[in-house]
């Protein structure tokens, strides 16, 4: 009897909190809608795997792209965590490079921990906080402390508060983990921009969803769904098998125009 009352009070309290939470950003422009290709639901733990450290840019880019879609007026914060000792090995996020992900330089808060214990503590604290949209943790070396128990704790907290966690790891082997989603990201050769055939184009990744399902659809193949996506200003765009991007039409290059020689002038790479 008493337990029921407490439960009811708790539920009511949560509902009142959800109703009365003041939005932090007043009068901000709208953020992209949740529906979309490859957009994940809130409140889950994601593991983003890359095979090697040199592909870290792609993995971080994917994690940030997902985190960007989690932003809303009541959840304005994105946190990035890394061990201090890994900074030179893996690189640190560059404020001015966040613009291509639709983020201001000051919008991502960097947290540097000295030990893995501190890092895990920081992730748990951040996830438990409601105004945090997403937490991206860059875990460069294999860590014993990040075991099944730890990931289960994280997923419980994430589900309770609605913040998402992206654990970026670098390995080919997979361990048991309580994460709801597991992605594998590998970079792929990009489509060159229309006016310069020798320049790199928008980032293109081969994304494999190894664990978890999006949009309620069941997984088609047992080893996970495989997509080739471009990251553009419209978000994720799927690339068909013939390497032509579906979606917005791009203007075709003028016939007869010579392709710019490399190094002759600055070209837009993204």
């Amino acid at each position, binding site marked *: 009897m008493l337990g029921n009352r407490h439960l009811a009070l708790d539920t009511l*309290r949560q509902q*009142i909190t959800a109703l*009365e*939470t*003041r*939005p*932090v950003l007043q009068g901000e422009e709208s953020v992209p809608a949740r529906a979309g290709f490859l957009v994940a639901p809130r409140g889950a733990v994601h593991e983003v795997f890359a095979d090697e450290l*040199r*592909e*870290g*840019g*792609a993995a*971080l*880019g994917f994690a*940030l792209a997902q985190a960007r879609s989690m932003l809303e007026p*009541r959840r304005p*914060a994105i946190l990035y965590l890394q061990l201090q000792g890994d*900074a*030179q090995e893996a*690189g*640190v*996020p*560059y*404020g*001015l*490079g966040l*613009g*291509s992900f639709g983020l*201001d*330089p*000051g*919008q*991502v*808060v*960097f*947290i*540097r921990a*000295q030990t893995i214990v*501190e890092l895990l*503590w*920081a992730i748990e*604290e*951040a996830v438990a*906080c*409601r*105004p*945090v949209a997403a937490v991206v943790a860059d875990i460069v070396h294999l860590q014993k402390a990040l075991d099944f128990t730890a990931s289960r704790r994280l997923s419980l907290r994430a589900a309770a508060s609605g913040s998402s966690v992206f654990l970026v790891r670098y390995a080919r082997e997979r361990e048991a983990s309580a994460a709801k989603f597991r992605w594998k990201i590998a*970079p792929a*050769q*990009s489509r*060159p921009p229309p006016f*310069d055939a020798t*320049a*790199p184009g928008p*980032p*293109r990744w081969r994304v494999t969803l190894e664990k978890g399902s999006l949009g309620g659809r069941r997984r088609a193949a047992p080893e996970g769904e495989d997509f080739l996506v471009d990251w553009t200003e419209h978000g994720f765009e799927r690339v068909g098998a013939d390497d032509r991007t579906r979606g917005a039409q791009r203007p075709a290059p003028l016939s007869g125009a010579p392709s710019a020689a490399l*190094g002759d002038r*600055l070209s837009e*790479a*993204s």
Partner: protein
Amino acid sequence: MKLVALDQRASAEGLFAGQNLADAKALVPNLELREIDLPFIEQVFGDFADWHSNATPIVTVLTDHAAWGDLMLDITGVSHLFGGEAAMLETLSGRLEALGLTVRGAIAPTVGAAWALAHFSSPQVAGADVSEILAPLPVSALRLEESQVAGLEHLGLKQVGQLYSRDRRALKARFGTSLLLRLDQALGYVEERVRPRLPLAEHYVERRFAEPIGLLDDVLMTAHDLALRLSSDLETEGVGAQAFHLFLYRVDHKVMTLSVNAARATRDAQHIGRLFAHRAERLVGEYDAGFGIDMIRLAASSISPVAAVQVGAFETVDGAASLDRLYDRMTSRLGPLAVVRSKPVNSHIPERAVKLEPMVARTPDDPQALLPLAAPRPLKLLPQPEPISVSLAEVPDGPPPNMVWRRVTYRFVRASGPERIAVEWWRSADRLQLGNEAQPSLDRTYTEGETARDYFVAEDDGGRRFWLFRQGLFGASEQPKWFLHGFFA
């Protein structure tokens, strides 16, 4: 070599401080001597002085004349806690003498008078009229320089009282303004303030223990209780604070200080308690309670008004405030520079174009600082650009066809660039120089051609995109060097 300090037996033999070592050894052949270790003594004396802040917060060490200083306490408004000024002098001197030290103290309305009385007179409490009491003392009681004292004695002015009636302009002309300044300070015509050693706090609460405690857990529990008391004090005044300091006074006369900061003014006792708990976790090696802690004081500084907030069942959750509290907790646990965000800086050079600013001390964004960028910037940057070896790039501005980085070869199929970033003309060219040398050699000046960087975005056959640059223009330097600076998504 001179004698700096001596014990009672040595002074009984006729030796005095300032005496030549040779003379002293001649007078007393079997004299025991030790060379003074000044930094150590100053530090120990400083710790000792900090311990005296349990009597009054304003404690300082005057280093005018003695080798390690004199202890000066400002006891305005505190003496009643000890039962009056005379009783306070008794107590403080008494507890020092109980430690085996020789103490001479005095209480006076001005710093100068107190110093004079303590050094040249008997322990006493001076009344409001200091000129009477200072008159019979020698002129060196005024903290003058040796040359001034010698000059005054030469003129026959041996006592302070004789200076009162002298013509001030003549004294100033002969001995300088410092003499008049010291005289006025001693008599109270010019105010002299002491600068306290420990941060001064407007609001503090303290708790003394009958039995000294030692465990960190007990200290944190006390800190929590003190936070509740401090929070109610701050609430009656409608203010909150951004910096909190916990002073732990040990039995053996040392003080430990723990400070935490908050991003916004707060008086939430739970938050303060938790910040100290996190700070204490970072302490582990340095915490040493010695023989025990007998007093703990919690002080608040950086006070500003804070509106009243409804707490409890109908609390409205303020997202920005709970984010700030999260950053406070993380800063407290991980360190002051652990929680940062990038702030753009008005500079072309990539590694200088952003600076990392701690979240607890953040400043509003400056829209001017963001330079419009036409060229792409990488998602990840290496803190220190790493040298790579590139074979045969097209001369003069061609992109690299391949590279060897961390012992792996990469073949590039696409590249764009170059983006030329030259040294900022208002800085010296040396600053942009990178290379194998840890410090740029000082006898070489680098020309602009040698330090300009040409940045390229290169993509290899696996789709990995790198941001690399060539340092030095062809023709300007003998061998241009290539570096990897960042990664794109």
